[in-house]
């Protein structure tokens, strides 16, 4: 009953959020200067040509009217037509989504592994030089934004010691005919190790650049939470039973220490997804973010709208998953 009510509230707030985002984006991109139609036409087009195309895309109507037309299309799954490519926005955006999802998920995985390892090491060797090293490392990692990490990585692994690809998503020779755009997941399922290696070779640097700041945040939050948990009575009691430090940290403290960090890590993960826009551009990775920048340059208003709505939708999904995990991992809420 309450579960059902919670889901309903959740869906409603999601709908309201997405609507709000749609309104803001719709207005903002129409208020900033730059005429999308003028950019489509060759130099020397007449005012009449421009007016005709304006009417064709509906740009001659008021913003309110345009919005209502757009909204009624969206209700039927039609997000409009991209001006620069003349293809349906929905199809374009969905074809790029898998690339960005794979990049984000790989980055999140790296961040959790790196950050978790640092937090555990810092806790295991707390109040020693090793903990100070963890603090300094994560502090440094955090003070440099992801796209600068991208440049650093390109210098290191693209120029000085060129072991990874610095641009693209896959080598053309290995572009087997995928049946989905989830290249990485699909090649893992098909056990194509040559393709996996190539994809990882492309994805490694952008994913690492995105992961480093998040790893630093996880390291700091989780270590703090772990150290507080280590003082609690049930941890002390476990010690008296004969358990060693490693067991006490990973089995007694960790499951409880993760909970308070979960929500913040979720928020940070949405920032990471936002970071893909610039990182994808930097590494010429053909995902949603890269497409977003092209769309902005071309003043491709319907495409910009579609991409922003999809990003907003992704963020609400991430928040939903985090909330569900929180309940799942917390016995006090699980049975409520």
């Amino acid at each position, binding site marked *: 009953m309450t579960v059902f009510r919670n889901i309903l509230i959740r869906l409603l707030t999601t709908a309201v959020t997405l609507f709000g985002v749609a309104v803001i984006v719709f207005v903002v991109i129409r208020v900033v200067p730059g005429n999308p139609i003028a950019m489509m036409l060759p130099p020397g087009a007449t005012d009449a040509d421009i007016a005709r195309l304006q009417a064709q895309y509906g740009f001659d109507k008021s913003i309110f009217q345009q919005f209502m037309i757009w909204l009624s299309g969206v209700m039927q799954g039609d997000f409009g037509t991209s001006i620069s490519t003349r293809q349906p926005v929905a199809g374009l955006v969905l074809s790029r989504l898998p690339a960005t999802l794979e990049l984000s998920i790989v980055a999140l995985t790296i961040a959790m592994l790196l950050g978790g390892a640092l937090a555990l090491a810092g806790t295991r060797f707390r109040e020693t030089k090793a903990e100070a090293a963890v603090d300094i490392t994560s502090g440094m990692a955090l003070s440099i934004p992801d796209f600068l990490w991208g440049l650093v990585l390109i210098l290191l692994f693209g120029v000085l010691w060129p072991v990874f690809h610095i641009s693209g998503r896959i080598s053309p020779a290995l572009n087997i005919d995928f049946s989905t755009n989830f290249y990485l997941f699909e090649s893992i399922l098909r056990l194509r190790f040559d393709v996996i290696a190539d994809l990882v070779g492309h994805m490694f640097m952008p994913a690492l650049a995105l992961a480093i700041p998040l790893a630093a945040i996880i390291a700091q939050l989780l270590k703090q939470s772990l150290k507080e948990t280590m003082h609690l009575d049930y941890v*002390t009691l476990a010690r*008296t*039973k*004969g358990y*060693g430090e490693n067991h006490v940290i990973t089995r007694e403290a960790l*499951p409880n220490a993760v909970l308070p960090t979960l929500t913040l890590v979720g928020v940070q993960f949405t920032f990471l997804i936002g970071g893909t826009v610039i990182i994808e551009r930097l590494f010429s990775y053909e995902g949603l973010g890269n497409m977003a920048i092209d769309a902005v340059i071309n003043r491709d208003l319907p495409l910009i709208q579609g991409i922003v709505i999809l990003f907003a939708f992704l963020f609400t999904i991430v928040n939903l998953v985090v909330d569900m995990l929180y309940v799942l991992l917390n016995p006090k809420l699980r049975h409520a």
Partner: protein
Amino acid sequence: MNSFLEVRNLNLSLKAGMPILRSVSLNVAAGQVHGLVGESGAGKSMIGKAVLGTLPRALQVTSGEIWLDGVNLNSLPTAERRKTIGAKAALIPQDPLTALNPSKRIGPQITRRLVDILGWQKSDAEARAVELLHEVHIPDPARVMKSYPHELSGGMRQRILIASAFAAEPKLIIADEPTTALDVTVQKQILRLIAEMQQRHDTALLFVTHDLGVVSKTCDTLSVLYAGKVIEEARMRRFFTRPIHPYSAALLKATPTYTNPRGSLTPVPQSVIDATEREVREHDMRASR
């Protein structure tokens, strides 16, 4: 009488140098109940923690030995010391609300260490846990073992912690103010239960409390601690009839007991406190020479 636990001249101080325990010596004979009494902050819990190897990092042992079942714990390498303590001694903690891991079911919190550390079969450990929960008068142990701590009352949780303490058949139980965090109504039941379990399993018990009244009912011997210094160690009967130290005598006067049922509830006189403080300072002077 041979001691199961023997603390010899234990000195403990903050790393900054401030003494916390002052040449503490203490004996708990096998199968006997030894009371450790003192006002809050006297260092009672630190003695228990020193024995169990769970001292806070801010504290360090500056000198002294702890012998458990004839073994000098300081002489053992860390891992072995931990195992020895885990096998021979156990703690009944002060606050049952914080002493159980909130993310684990009760069953594994009792059985896991039997499997992990003592190498029991899982089924044996579970049977043992059910038996122990019966012993501490928990109805429907099978259901309780599947519960999470937050689903149970404080009294129930303390019973579980008592059962868990006896799980590996330790020969020494340290109970650190095991009823202070509980409702007055369940305090008596829990005290009776600890006494009952101690007798059934024939363990030594170091019973830490600030309440002399409780000691009078349960203990065979006792130590009185003041500012980290044992000012009197005595057999029960002698202590209640002829306390030697003026502080002990004053403490006794302030406590309702069998012999003094209404208790005069007079606070310990300032002159006695001053004299005892002087003793503590004299000890520190001698120690620093």
